[in-house]
């Protein structure tokens, strides 16, 4: 049975925002209400529409 034993890792959910016209990208923390392909304002570079390209969890590596 495919159940792995890696559940103890800490995850942080991030939202990746991209511009539809240029290569502008921005990663920020996930906020409730975010969903993939939601339009979230305009690009600071060329005023093109910004959209959420992905929402994913990253393992937090504690630097101690």
């Amino acid at each position, binding site marked *: 049975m*495919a*159940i*792995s034993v890696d559940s103890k890792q800490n995850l942080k959910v991030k939202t990746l925002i991209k511009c539809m016209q240029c290569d502008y990208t921005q990663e920020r923390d996930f906020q409730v209400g*975010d*969903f*993939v392909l939601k339009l979230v304002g305009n690009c600071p570079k060329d005023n093109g529409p910004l959209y959420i390209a992905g929402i994913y969890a990253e393992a937090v590596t504690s630097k101690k």
Partner: protein
Amino acid sequence: MNGLIIALAQTSSQGQSGAALAFSYIFYIFFIALLALSFFPGVQQKTQIMFLSRDVEQKLQMIEGYLKDSRGLTEKLLKEKGFADPKAFVERIIDRFVIDPVSVEPTDIINRMKLLMRSNEDTVREMITAVNPNIDPMTRSQIEISTEVVNALNLIYKVIRHYLIMAKKLNSIMIMYQLQMVAPIYVKYAEAYAKAQKVFLQGIPIGDGLGPLVASRFLMKADQKFTVSKDTIAGSIEFEGRKVVVVKAEGPMATVGTPGEGVQNVIEREGGRVSRIITVDAALKLEGEETGSVAEGMGVAMGDPGPEKIAIERVAVKYGIPIDAVIVKMSMEEAITEMRKEVYQAADKAIEYVKRIILERTKPGSTVVVVGVGNTAGIAQ
């Protein structure tokens, strides 16, 4: 037996006195009694059952904890959404069941199964909308998922408890051993389910959303999207001279839709003139395999009890259309909780696989159907 103990005690009492003597008496009596006891048939087994059942009880408590958490979350959600009596609603839904159709008469099992499953979903949906007719689809899907989680956890809890009580009643070490072996796996499942509910309630895409994510990348460029079956949407784009019809569940609600029926309707609408069906889905990895690795093969990639999967197979057979499968691997837990970055990055790779299949195996001018299978929570189109 008694004679032996006393004899031994006496031999050791030479030259000792007071407290030390009393202590060595007690020590010997205790030691020998224990030794003698362990030779009685059944004593060893009894102690073993005791230890095993304590272990299982502890696991059962963990499962119960997850069940309580999930129940609390569901009741809280219902309360927020205007349900007057959340407790009663959960009480009604927690023991819901669907009875498998008769399988000794194997004609038409799929249709009967589909009817039962569909009408169960519809009934739960109606139960929700009856209380709150103006509920938004997003919240409704979250309530539906929550009730499913509570239902599943309740079943796990009750079944483990059943075997624990039975093993104790029958004093059966064999049942206890088996239970002790599987209990940790079910604790893991329960934990994953409880986590999944929290993720769904925040609207975060899950690992299983890989298929819909790939489909949404294609659908971004489609100007027209239309509903093809219950909770399922499609749109067509042009790619290198081919018409690509892309099907996915309708997001960002937490639903898997009815991709099988959707594909069937799309192909019938095209009059069967489709040269390839490509299914994209998340798949369970084997331990040791890397999360986010991509593989391709033949057949319908879909974790469905039957009705949806067979709908695609049947329409493919009817018109002689080959079915390709592209899968992205992940663990069970990764599939039902937050989408990992590795899986997100694998979406690009999966898209490359799909594009290559289209270029290599179809001619310009033909029509291809691409299906992104999975739960589309947090992924629009």
